[in-house]
């Protein structure tokens, strides 16, 4: 029962986390209020309330007035702490100091409530209407929901009442609080002279990111009026038709611009595939481990029942009655255990949600939502699946056991000869090597991982008794208790196969994951250390031409263009894999020394400098099977306006529409000083990025024409005079234009981000190991009961109680060490498969496999620690009795 609870809890936790991630991704991909059309006044004009009223009276009822203004917001303490002490005040001051600049967006909520959905236009009328309804309902729901909450708490407040406001879930995750206030800075003071407004936040995907949505009545408060801050414009949730725009222009007396916004290229910040793959791999791993745990539990249960079952059979009870009885018992177990397991799973998932949410928002710019699943259907599904699985797995042992008429029939276990084991091992390894050749997709790679685990389990089952017997043969016989421990472990090893398998899989996966992560970390660190050649880097939104450099500073910009790859090799590729990023790379000496390359042609760098070829990253090479020497055809080259266009919310008033990346369609000559040759000179590693990338020498970009357009926002800063580099961090000029990071800071930040990425998978990995470890320990404890008579004989022959307990602990640890010894080579092989098969096919990058003994020893030590901890408790309570009348052990 414990096994079923454990298996269900583990499985439900991982499934819920996956579901939360998937739902979060769906939520993140939903349309916002700015997904139709935006009407703004032409330069020099403003829109007023009168214009708005006129437009609506004139029939444009789909228009919703909005106004926006950027303020610095800081997190407030909860209402319970409203009477602040000095300490709290100090905290509040600190919070104000770390204020975050967000856009306060006021919309006419009355217009939103009465939005005319039937007037929705577009080619996909019904879909568009549904989508629009969702956006509106989401917005309306937000205000209704928060309004109720506010009503219940307002009466306790001693200061300014909180304003109902909405934010995007991602913004909420970044803020990490439910109440915000506007910091009274110089900017805010000009418009907010009275009590600082407080906002009670709710989440909605309808709200653009980095915006705080309020009703327009709350927006225009105190000194903020339509005179001091005119309306920013009108939005329509659906795109306006040409006729509607024409009508609108005739109704509104001032010149207007209508911008059609597309939702298709929104910066939705989707969860990286690597993370999803990790989660699913963990889920699958947990499922396999759970399967072995349950199988093992069944085996143990039947073994314990064997004497009674045999007696019943000997008394004439038909085996089918026993089988039915055992299955009914299993069903009852399911009914009791599954709800407990599910409840534990739900609880664990809810406990983990804040951590996961934080990880998602900080690392992936993605949302993790507490999964919304139907409890009844999850429960029913769990009961059905568990019972079905148990039924299937129990049928064979139940049939075998219920048919047994004597112990000998059941006890007989096949003994494998050394020759058989060696032959099977060779066959298994050959099968793996052959199968490895046929791996050509991510699915194949994952199936190969499953095959690897299956083969390794088979080999463990075969090798464990042999290995244990070999250890028995070399154990000194003059240490009789030690000899007994080793010998009985060898015997135990044949009865604990399934528990060993669960533990083995978990440990192998743990070692594999850790070796892979460590290899990835080492590769990334050394790659970054070499690649970051400049003493500092500036990350800025300022256009390249407007950046002011301090005296003596030399800046190397990173320019980036977009293009589309064409060619015969791409026919089988997915459509979205065609996009490539064309980035600049400096050809000065520092750049040359910093360049890390996997493979290249002779004199590649010289050719690259001269513009006779390009370097491509592994992602591009592996995804499209491109080799060195191939010539690429790049179409539709365009600039990606990163620096000025990606304010997620889109500050409409200032003209930056949230339509994402816009590409200007011009000729190649516009971008390059000379026509580039896309002959592949070499392939370089580019860890952490999912983009296909081509490197061109910086000198080949036409900076005069596309400098601002192609500027990626990253600037490598160095000084001609090396002594001046020491003063770099104090350079206020650069700090004022963006975020300046020294090389070490950037390296630390990158590695911190790297480490955070794996926190969750590490957590799940340890959980799986813990579950398998507990199951292993439990089954060992149960088996030790059947071994109790031997322990009593030991006591009868004069072995002390402490020595018996220690011997038992030693026995378990010995079995763990044996399992770990077998898990280490397979763990390393698994890491190899992860790096060179799964990563290669799923993410299109590989890195050197680095085997660090410390990492492996840590994995094994953690698993042994878990086992010791779990076993030590029942062992402490165990009292091996001494009795003359011992039963023969089964």
């Amino acid at each position, binding site marked *: 029962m414990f096994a079923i609870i454990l298996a269900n809890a583990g499985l439900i936790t991982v499934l819920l986390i996956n579901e939360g991630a998937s739902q979060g991704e769906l939520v993140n991909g939903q349309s916002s209020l700015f997904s139709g059309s935006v009407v703004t006044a032409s330069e020099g004009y403003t829109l007023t309330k009168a214009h708005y009223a006129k437009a609506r009276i004139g029939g444009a009822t789909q228009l919703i007035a909005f106004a926006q203004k950027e303020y610095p917001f800081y997190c407030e303490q909860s209402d319970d702490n409203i009477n602040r002490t000095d300490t709290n005040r100090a905290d509040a001051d600190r919070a104000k100091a770390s204020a975050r600049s967000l856009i306060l967006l006021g919309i006419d909520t009355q217009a939103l409530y009465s939005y005319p959905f039937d007037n929705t236009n577009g080619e996909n009328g019904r879909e568009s209407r549904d989508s629009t309804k969702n956006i509106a309902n989401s917005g309306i729901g937000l205000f209704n929901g928060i309004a109720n909450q506010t009503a219940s708490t307002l009466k306790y407040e001693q200061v300014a009442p909180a304003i109902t406001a909405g934010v995007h879930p991602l913004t909420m995750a970044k803020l990490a609080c439910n109440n915000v206030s506007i910091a009274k800075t110089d900017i805010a003071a000009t418009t907010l002279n009275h009590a600082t407004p407080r906002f009670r936040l709710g989440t909605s995907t309808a709200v653009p990111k980095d915006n705080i949505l309020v009703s327009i009545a709350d927006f225009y408060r105190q000194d903020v009026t339509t005179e001091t801050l005119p309306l920013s414009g009108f939005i329509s949730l659906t795109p306006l038709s040409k006729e509607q725009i024409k009508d609108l222009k005739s109704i509104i007396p001032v010149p207007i611009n209508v911008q059609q916004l597309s939702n298709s290229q929104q910066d939705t910040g989707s969860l990286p595939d690597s993370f999803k793959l990790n989660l699913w791999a963990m889920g699958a791993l947990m499922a396999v481990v759970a399967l072995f745990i349950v199988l093992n539990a069944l085996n143990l249960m039947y073994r314990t029942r064997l004497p009674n079952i045999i007696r019943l059979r000997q008394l004439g009870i038909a085996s089918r009655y026993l089988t039915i009885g055992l299955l009914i018992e299993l069903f009852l177990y399911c009914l009791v255990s599954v709800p407990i397991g599910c409840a534990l799973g739900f609880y664990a998932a809810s406990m983990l949600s804040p951590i996961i949410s934080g990880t998602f928002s900080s690392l992936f710019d993605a949302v993790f939502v507490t999964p919304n699943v139907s409890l009844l259907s999850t429960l029913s599904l769990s009961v059905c699946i568990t019972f079905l699985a148990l039924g299937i797995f129990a049928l064979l042992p139940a049939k075998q056991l219920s048919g047994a008429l004597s112990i000998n029939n059941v006890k007989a276990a096949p003994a494998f000869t050394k020759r058989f084991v060696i032959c099977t091992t060779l066959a298994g390894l050959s099968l793996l090597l052959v199968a490895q050749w046929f791996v050509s997709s991510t699915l194949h790679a994952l199936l190969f991982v499953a095959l690897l685990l299956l083969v390794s389990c088979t080999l463990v089952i075969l090798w464990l008794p042999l290995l244990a017997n070999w250890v028995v043969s070399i154990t000194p*016989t*003059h*240490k*009789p*208790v030690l*000899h*007994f421990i080793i*010998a*009985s472990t*060898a*015997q135990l090893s044949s009865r604990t196969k399934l528990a060993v398998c669960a533990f083995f899989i978990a440990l192998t996966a743990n070692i594999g994951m850790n070796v892979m992560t460590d290899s990835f970390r080492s590769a990334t660190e050394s790659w970054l250390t070499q690649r970051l050649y400049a003493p500092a880097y500036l990350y800025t939104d300022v256009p390249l031409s407007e950046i002011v450099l301090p005296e003596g500073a030399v800046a190397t910009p990173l320019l980036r263009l977009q293009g589309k790859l064409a060619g015969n090799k791409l026919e089988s590729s997915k459509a979205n894999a065609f996009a490539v990023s064309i980035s600049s790379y400096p050809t000065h000496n520092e750049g040359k020394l910093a360049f890390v390359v996997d493979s290249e042609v002779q004199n590649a760098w010289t050719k690259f400098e001269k513009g006779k070829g390009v370097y491509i990253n592994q992602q591009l090479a592996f995804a499209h099977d491109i080799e060195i020497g191939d010539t690429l055809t790049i179409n539709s080259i365009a600039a990606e306006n990163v620096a000025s266009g990606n304010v997620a919310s889109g500050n409409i008033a200032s003209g930056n529409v949230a339509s994402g990346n816009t590409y200007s369609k011009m000729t190649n000559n516009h971008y390059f000083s000379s026509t580039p040759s896309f002959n592949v000179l070499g392939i370089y590693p580019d860890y952490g990025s999912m983009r296909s990338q081509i490197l061109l020498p910086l000198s080949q970009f036409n900076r005069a024409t596309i400098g601002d357009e192609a500027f990626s926002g990253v600037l490598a800063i160095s000084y001609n005079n090396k002594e001046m580099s020491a003063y770099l961090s104090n350079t206020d000029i650069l700090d004022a234009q963006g975020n300046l990071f020294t090389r070490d800071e950037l390296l630390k930040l990158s590695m911190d981000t790297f480490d955070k990425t794996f926190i969750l998978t590490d957590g799940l990995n340890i959980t799986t190991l813990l579950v398998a470890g507990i199951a292993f320990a439990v089954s060992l404890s149960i088996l030790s009961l059947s071994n109790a*008579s*031997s322990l009593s*004989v030991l*006591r*009868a*022959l*004069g*072995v*002390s*109680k402490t020595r018996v307990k220690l011997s038992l602990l030693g026995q378990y640890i010995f079995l763990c060490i044996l399992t770990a010894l077998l898990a280490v080579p397979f763990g390393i092989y698994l890491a190899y498969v992860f790096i060179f098969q799964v990563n290669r096919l799923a993410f299109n990058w590989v890195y050197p496999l680095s085997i660090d003994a410390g990492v492996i020893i840590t994995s094994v030590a953690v698993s042994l620690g878990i086992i010791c901890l779990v076993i030590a408790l029942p062992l402490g309570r165990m009292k091996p009795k*001494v*009795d*003359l*009348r*011992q*039963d*023969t*052990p089964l």
Partner: protein
Amino acid sequence: MHGRRILHMLKIEKLSKTYDTVSTPILSALDLVVESGQSVSIQGASGCGKSTLLSLIAGFDSPTSGSIAINDYCLRPVKDPAHEIDNNKSASLQSKYVDEFRKNELGIVFQSYNLFDCFNAWDNIAFTARLKGNYNKHYQTELMQQLNILQLAKKPISQLSGGEQQRCAIARALVHKPSLVLADEPTGNLDEATSQAVSDILFDVCRKMNTTLLVVTHSADVALKADNPLWLHAGKLFTDKALTTPWSHSP
């Protein structure tokens, strides 16, 4: 027989045992003295306390009152008002004391053999000698030859018959040269012919080795092979089957 300690005397005085669940004592002021090298058999009805007596002598259980003295060792109740020094010993020390006694002075033959099925016959037999630290390969070979089991030395226990297993158990009980061998129904699981053979071997070997033997049995044939056949009834020992003559020490 080098390194052998001879049992001077097994001396049981006023031994009583009352279980918590039963009001009447199962053993009541029982006395017994066994001289070195003697064999004693104890018969009696089921539940009369035969195995309890063996358990007390082996130190598996503690008497309610009275004492059991074997060579330098003396087993008393856990809380004996008459022996304050023993009472001051901590429980773990007392337990260690009894463990040492079992390891050094005792050989036990169980009804159900209780051999370790993870060992072969040789290692099973050698276990007690290795534990005591007086393992002697030559001596063990000689002993196994006497018991006619030398040819089984390398066989796993599961492949031995009941009679063979019991002979291995007898060898294990004797190989470390104990002062006293306790046998609880040593032939209880064996057929008539095997039972006779095994009991003959047990008594013969003990006599040859001058080892004191205490056998509890239901079999009259086995019991009569002992130097002193005794009957247990109402918590006391009798020298005749009619239970008319209580046992008394006659030096």
